[in-house]
């Protein structure tokens, strides 16, 4: 049994309980780090995700109520007055993320409509917490001017102090909060 465990940890791929194959996480990390490096080298900036959400919200509100955007000190930084929030590097990058993940889903046979949740809770409870969690997370990204990809990961790549602080705040808090929400997970 000991030998069996050791062999598994050196395999390039690993089988998770759902029967699909995942890359060795260190290989995944090297690929991700290389993509991140390329992003900086080619475009002078790192990866991101929450910025595209912000731009989409600003653009949508601007389409529905442009005068409101003009008078809102937050929206007007990103939309209105000839600004084109959707014609933005991050928005294109996020479209790429969706496509890349989709392709990976095809390759590793993970395309499936499902609500992934602990067997100890219902789908409904999982979805309610996903909604609430997303709401809080979205709110937080605006205050911190980024998320785990943009502020934390990309920030760390360029040794940004703010990036490191946000990374520690997110993961430090999540460790404590996960314990509070443990009934949903284990």
């Amino acid at each position, binding site marked *: 049994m000991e030998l069996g465990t050791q062999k598994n940890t050196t395999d390039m791929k690993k089988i*998770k*309980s759902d029967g699909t194959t995942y890359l060795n*996480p260190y290989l*995944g*990390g090297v*690929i*991700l*780090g*290389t993509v991140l*490096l390329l*992003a900086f080298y080619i475009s002078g900036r*790192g*990866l991101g*995700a*929450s910025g595209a*959400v912000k731009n*989409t*919200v600003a653009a949508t509100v601007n389409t529905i109520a442009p005068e409101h955007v003009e008078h809102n*000190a*937050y929206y007007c930084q990103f939309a209105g007055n000839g600004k084109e929030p959707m014609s933005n*590097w991050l928005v294109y990058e996020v*479209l*790429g993320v*969706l*496509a*890349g993940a989709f392709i990976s*889903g095809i390759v*590793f046979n*993970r*395309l499936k*409509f499902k*609500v*992934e949740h602990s067997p100890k809770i219902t789908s409904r409870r*999982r979805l309610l*917490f996903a*909604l*609430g*969690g*997303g709401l*809080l*997370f979205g709110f*937080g990204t605006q205050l*911190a*001017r980024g998320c*785990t990809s943009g*502020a934390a990961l990309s*920030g760390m790549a*360029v040794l*940004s*102090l*703010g990036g490191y*602080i946000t*990374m520690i*705040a997110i993961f430090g808090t*999540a*460790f404590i*909060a*996960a314990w509070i*929400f443990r009934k949903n*997970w284990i």
Partner: protein
Amino acid sequence: MWDNIFAVLIGMGFGFALEASGFSSSRKIIGTFFGYDFVVVKVFFTAAIVASMGLLYLSYFGLVDYSQLYIQPTFLTGAIVGGVIMGIGFSMGGFCPGTSLCAAAVGKLDGIVFLGGMFIGVFLFSESFPLWEKMYDSGSQGSKMINDAFGISPELFTFILVLAAVSMFYGASWVQKKVKKVEY
């Protein structure tokens, strides 16, 4: 135009790497906090050291100039308070923006709902901005780099980061062996 094409290609690499590593699964992601799956620690810190070392090397060879790169600006209050709020959202929802995109792309309904929740959260922040404006703008340090905060060179800091990351990787394997098995 090429800017946008590269953006899509880079995004595709990002999304593929994330999903292939398992980040479309909220139960895999949350595993770090319960000790049964440290994929987040391994992928995140490997990527961070590869990218930060890579940039230092490129800069050394004159291929990259840090003053031309976008460095996440430091706003102390927002970085901390926003990070704490994100941390709570993370453990409630089991995702972050990038991973929820990957989850949504492969059909995870919880990922799609998390994404929807984020749009609402961003909207609420924007609409109530006057309440947060002062907090949002406070504690500005500009594009400060962390090694400067400690008064050491970027190379030394990165070296220490590599040591810390490798220790975490060994620690993670050790914890994972000791923890009660979770079916996920």
